[in-house]
């Protein structure tokens, strides 16, 4: 169903690691450590600034892959990973894009299952990749019915 999209990527979108968004996110995950939210603490830290929590890239806009649509309900998030070269700094610009890495299908006890592997990538202003995340999304029989209608 999604095999044709393997290797397709979105056009990069410029995102800002916005201070208010970082604070809201840190609060939502119950991690209001001063390294994320306190400017003075950030300045005195080894980073000389505030950083964002490791799962913050969930917030970014990664753009759209042409003609690629997933329903926003009925999917199962199976796996998630993040790889960092360094933490994200509050206030920096990150160019984000997404890429379909793989798609495969399995027949299990619960019928058909599709596995979609999506990688989200963020680059800093020098074009260096700062993080790469990977999600494995499981598409169940129910969702497939909706998609093929």
């Amino acid at each position, binding site marked *: 169903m999604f095999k044709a999209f393997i290797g397709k990527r979105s056009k990069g979108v410029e995102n800002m690691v916005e201070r208010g968004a970082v604070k809201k996110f840190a609060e*939502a995950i119950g991690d209001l450590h001063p*390294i994320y939210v306190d400017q003075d603490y950030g300045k005195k830290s*080894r980073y000389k600034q505030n950083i964002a929590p490791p*799962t913050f890239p*969930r*917030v970014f806009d990664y753009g759209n892959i042409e003609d690629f649509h997933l329903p926003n309900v009925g999917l199962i*998030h199976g796996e*998630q990973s*993040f790889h960092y070269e360094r*933490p994200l700094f509050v206030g920096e610009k990150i160019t984000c894009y997404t890429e379909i890495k793989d798609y495969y299908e399995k027949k299990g006890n619960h019928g058909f299952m599709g596995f979609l592997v999506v990688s989200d990538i963020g680059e800093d202003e020098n074009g260096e990749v700062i993080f790469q995340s990977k999600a494995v999304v499981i598409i169940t029989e129910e969702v497939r019915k909706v998609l093929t209608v």
Partner: protein
Amino acid sequence: MTILTELKPGDSLKSVNLEPVSRMDLIKYAGASGDFNPIHTIDEEANKAGLPGIIAHGMWTMGNLSKLFSDYIENGFIEDYTIRFKNMVFIHDIITLNAILKENDGKRMHFSVNATNQNDQKVIKGNIIFNLY
């Protein structure tokens, strides 16, 4: 506070017990993350999806778990964070966050991490590689 580099393989970071999961926790995470999938906030939508009630965003639990490492941010950073979502988290669940050191080669500390519910079921499970400065 634990001195990170003194940990030996098999040692744990201090586990954290979260307050019982509330609807407001998930509404806040929906707002902060932009993930408004209604199975996380609206009972009727969760029921329509065949669930007994709303479930936490997997990323909410994953986001919580990494706070075990926030106090060590002067020592290093999370280089790799990998999670498998094993079981659903419902409201009123009491989640415990755990990290156990597996290996330390002096440059990187490899932790096995998980979050469990009040029935000792693992809800998420994975690994964190902490890169030391």
